[in-house]
């Protein structure tokens, strides 16, 4: 006979421990390991041994110590108090940990994920006798100054409300509602739900992508847009600006909630996010950015198994807010570190490696991760979305490595960062030739309705100019630019204006850091108007040399700084300037 709830450690190898003999442990079950009660998870069972990965350092652990089963898989606690917080990979609040154990992360810490003492002002929206289903909203709590938290019935429950407390102040453990289930049992519902991190939260149905996630970044919104509920990958070698891109989206995108997962990245980066986001205000709500943000920080020196879990923890939090009817965007920085955690654990388990030492299940784990994104109709009928923006750190900046390649199969938006652009300090260093967005056609109706009829056509025209530039550059590299005919010189010049004046965007400039759609449209129109006019001149036989004497090209490049975001009327001046340039060249050379 074996004990269902206990095992004895037999062997230890880094974050992996073995228990000999048959145990009653379940696959994926959360366990406490050893005297310090380190958190672990069961990952393999055979008749001889159980294998457990431990989410904390195993230094000092001894064979012979006990392992206790908890009976449940690794879960996160879902209730008010998640936002404006920073957690580690298994939802332990880092702020609380710092208070109790000092500047270092000590082991075996057991704190509640969320504050159980705090009283929340609660407004109930159900009444006695009402029938409730999984997902039905029971109460509303003002969680932060920007977000109203909606307390819901857990997805697997339902019944008739037999009693409900009056409006007032409650903790997350207080009973709010008692329901009678269909089988006659009663259940007491609090604000708190638990949900296993590896299982997607259910929803009623999935909508096709139809609305863009507006980020205020020109190269994204105009050139390679991502839909709400979409998936995007940002691959790039070190120093190309993955983290910067993620920060910009986290700051300025029009999502309601941001979940920022720092997975195996730098400690100072998380500190920076904490500091910066607390100081910045959300342009839409006017409140602090942290009021809509939750951070998951599992820095590179924190235990590797928790790094693997951090991605799922973040996803589950995101799905929970989606169920309330919010649009959530997840920044996962970086999914390569997560894949490496998989590789590291797989190596410790002595599994047969596939490509580059990564386990063969890398592709299926990646697809399962990205498929949890989507625009959904929730169980309670509201509409919400989870968009995933995953950074990828390819080894040696080489996009042919397995994580980038497999990610490419499962995302529909690819923002490839380029080393040579980063070296020339062209930021964002997203390369227009390697990047793509499959959402472009899905979103075309939205753009033509809400931004402008010609928007997509203009965008395509700019793309085609950039493509022409790249093939012309092949020639220029061989024989120099001087021998090109003037119409091709014009293409090069306009492409330069597009690159410097439109694609390049300064994240540190107060106006340029986030640009509204309307300004993006006007900038694009202005550049193309210049092209149209200049083309006419060239067709009449004017040499490019003469056109270049006019400062108009430089003036258009500088318009991103010169036109404030709230003075879009100034674009009419630019139209006039271009006309003046046309007339001037005509008058002097006709």
């Amino acid at each position, binding site marked *: 006979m074996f004990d269902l709830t206990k095992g004895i450690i037999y062997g230890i190898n880094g974050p992996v421990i073995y228990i000999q003999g048959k145990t009653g442990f379940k696959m994926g079950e959360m366990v406490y390991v050893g005297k310090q009660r380190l958190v672990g998870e069961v990952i393999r069972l055979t008749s001889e041994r159980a294998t457990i990965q431990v989410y904390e350092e195993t230094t000092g652990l001894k064979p012979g110590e006990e392992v206790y089963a908890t009976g449940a898989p690794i879960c996160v606690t879902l209730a008010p108090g998640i936002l404006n917080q920073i957690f580690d990979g298994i939802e332990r609040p880092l702020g609380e940990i710092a208070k109790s154990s000092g500047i270092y992360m000590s082991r075996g810490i057991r704190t509640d994920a969320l504050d159980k003492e705090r009283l929340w002002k609660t407004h109930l929206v159900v009444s006695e006798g009402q029938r409730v289903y999984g997902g039905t909203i029971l109460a509303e709590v003002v969680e932060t100054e920007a977000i109203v938290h909606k307390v819901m019935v857990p997805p697997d429950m339902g019944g008739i409300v037999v009693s409900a407390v009056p409006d007032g102040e409650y903790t997350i453990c207080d009973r709010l509602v008692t329901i009678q289930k269909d089988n006659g049992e009663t259940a007491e519902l609090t604000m708190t739900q638990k949900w296993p991190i590896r299982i997607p939260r259910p929803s009623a149905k999935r909508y096709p992508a139809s609305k863009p996630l507006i980020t205020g970044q020109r190269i994204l919104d105009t050139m390679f847009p991502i839909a709400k509920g979409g998936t995007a990958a940002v691959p790039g070698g070190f120093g190309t600006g993955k983290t910067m891109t993620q920060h910009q989206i986290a700051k300025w995108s029009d999502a309601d909630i941001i979940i920022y997962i720092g997975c195996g990245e730098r*400690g*100072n980066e998380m*500190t920076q996010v904490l500091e910066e986001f607390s100081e910045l205000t959300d342009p839409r709500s006017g409140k602090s950015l942290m009021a809509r943000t939750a951070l998951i920080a599992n*820095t590179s020196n924190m235990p590797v198994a928790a790094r693997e879990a951090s991605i799922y923890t973040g996803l589950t939090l995101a799905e929970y807010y989606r169920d309330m009817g919010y649009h959530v965007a997840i920044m996962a920085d970086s999914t390569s570190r997560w894949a490496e955690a998989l590789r590291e654990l797989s190596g410790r388990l002595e599994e047969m490696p596939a490509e580059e030492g990564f386990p063969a299940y890398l592709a299926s784990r990646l697809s399962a991760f990205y498929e949890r994104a989507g625009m959904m109709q929730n169980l309670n009928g509201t509409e919400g979305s989870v968009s995933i923006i995953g950074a990828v750190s390819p080894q040696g900046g080489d996009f042919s490595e397995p994580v980038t390649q497999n990610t490419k199969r499962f995302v529909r938006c690819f923002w490839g960062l380029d080393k040579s652009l980063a070296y020339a300090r062209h930021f964002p260093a997203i390369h227009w030739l390697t990047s793509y967005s499959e959402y472009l056609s899905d979103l075309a109706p939205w753009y033509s309705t809400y931004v402008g009829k010609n928007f997509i056509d203009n965008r395509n025209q700019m793309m085609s100019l950039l493509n022409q530039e790249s093939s012309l550059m092949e020639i220029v590299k061989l024989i120099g630019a001087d021998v090109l005919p003037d119409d091709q010189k014009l293409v090069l010049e306009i492409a330069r204006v597009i690159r410097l004046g439109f694609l390049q965007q300064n994240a540190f400039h107060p106006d340029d850091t986030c640009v509204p759609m309307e300004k993006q449209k006007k900038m694009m129109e202005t550049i193309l108007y210049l092209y149209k006019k200049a083309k006419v001149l060239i067709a009449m036989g004017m040499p490019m040399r003469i056109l270049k004497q006019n400062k108009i090209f430089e003036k258009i490049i500088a318009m991103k700084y010169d036109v404030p975001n709230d003075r879009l009327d100034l674009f009419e001046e630019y139209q006039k300037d271009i006309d003046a340039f046309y007339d001037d060249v005509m008058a002097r050379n006709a």
Partner: protein
Amino acid sequence: MAIEYLGLSEVNGPLIALEGVQDASYDEIVEISIDNGREKKIGRIVECYADRAVIQVFQGTENISLMNTHTKLTGHPMEVALSEEMLGRTFNGIGIPIDGLGPVPSTLKRDVNGQPLNPVSREYPRNCICTGISAIDGLTTLIRGQKLPIFSGNGLPHDRLAAQIVKQASLGDGDEEAFGIVFAAMGVKYDVADFFRRTFEESGVSDHVAMFLNLANDPVVERLITPKVALTVAEYLAFEKGMHILVILTDMTSFAEAMREVSSSKGEIPSRKGYPGYLYSELATIYERAGIVKGREGSVTQIPILTMPNDDITHPIPDLTGYITEGQIVLDRSLHGQSVYPPISVLPSLSRLMKDGIGSGYTREDHQDLANQLFSCYAKVGDARALASVIGEDELSDLDKIYLKFGQEFESRFVGQGESENRSMSDTLNIGWELLRMLPREELDRVNTKILDKYYEL
């Protein structure tokens, strides 16, 4: 009462296996006595089963036989004795004094593995350190609490550069705060260690230096612990004694190579180029020990040096390092060939913390714009040179010719400087503007118009 175990069941490279052990814990340190105490070694338990432990011996397994050893468990992980007296002393790779001045008086011992800093407790580093080297101060500014590695190759002057940084580093305003240097050498040549020792002596800082030396002929496994010992000392001095500590780790490539050696004798599944899958995590536990902590005085700044095998920046060691550290300073062989010192290859070099530690209030208002402009112009120099090598310099447009000239001047006057030349921040920035004035104003598209008016038109 500690039990001693007689004999071993297996010796394999740096690893030994012990059967029938009781009460061993993972990562515990064991003492091994050979031939009745004629030789003593220490080791660390790297795998641990109910009755069997695999031990990694720091000093190598020479002289160990299956019969002649007594192994004793110490009951604790690797620890190092800490004291302020460690400055001015020299230690071997596992923290034992080798300068003949006897043991360090100390009552405090600490686990060398350290613990991860809670991100909430960190303070974002903002104070820039002036190194007096234009290419670093101007373009890849070093910030206190940063980890900024030097990516170098064999035969390049990375040691001289590191020594110059040590000699010249200051907070810029004659700050008199307590500072110290922790120097850890892993598998470096005797000459290199000696060069650093002489440099520290010449510049009069040797009283503030704690040196940890694991030389090229010292046991390989020992160097796996050297950076951890050094950083434990650095953290103690910084966060408990309020000192500003600069840690120089050289050479991280030897460290990674030692990991590969041990990993393969453990029979682990290799990932890239035979390095173990946990190379990233292991490097991260070292690099992430730099930083500043809220409410504490001191700081730990790291300058790890690594030699890129075959000058390949995509090799796993520089690659993974670059993903953890906050930027990198890359040295370039062709610049070195042209006798440019320091041969810093500006374009791939980067300091991630620079943007928040420069500009008005820190260095000078034009710093960021100037740096961006220099980067961007120098990138164009590369294009012009590529073109010139195809069509010849004479055929270039006038603008491209100016760029070529700019490139040359930039390399010789801005990047190049004397080994003892200590340039102030404003000198560095002024040289930058002098160079930019070679170019027509329209070409300067990264600089704010106001700043251009002020600095370009002098």
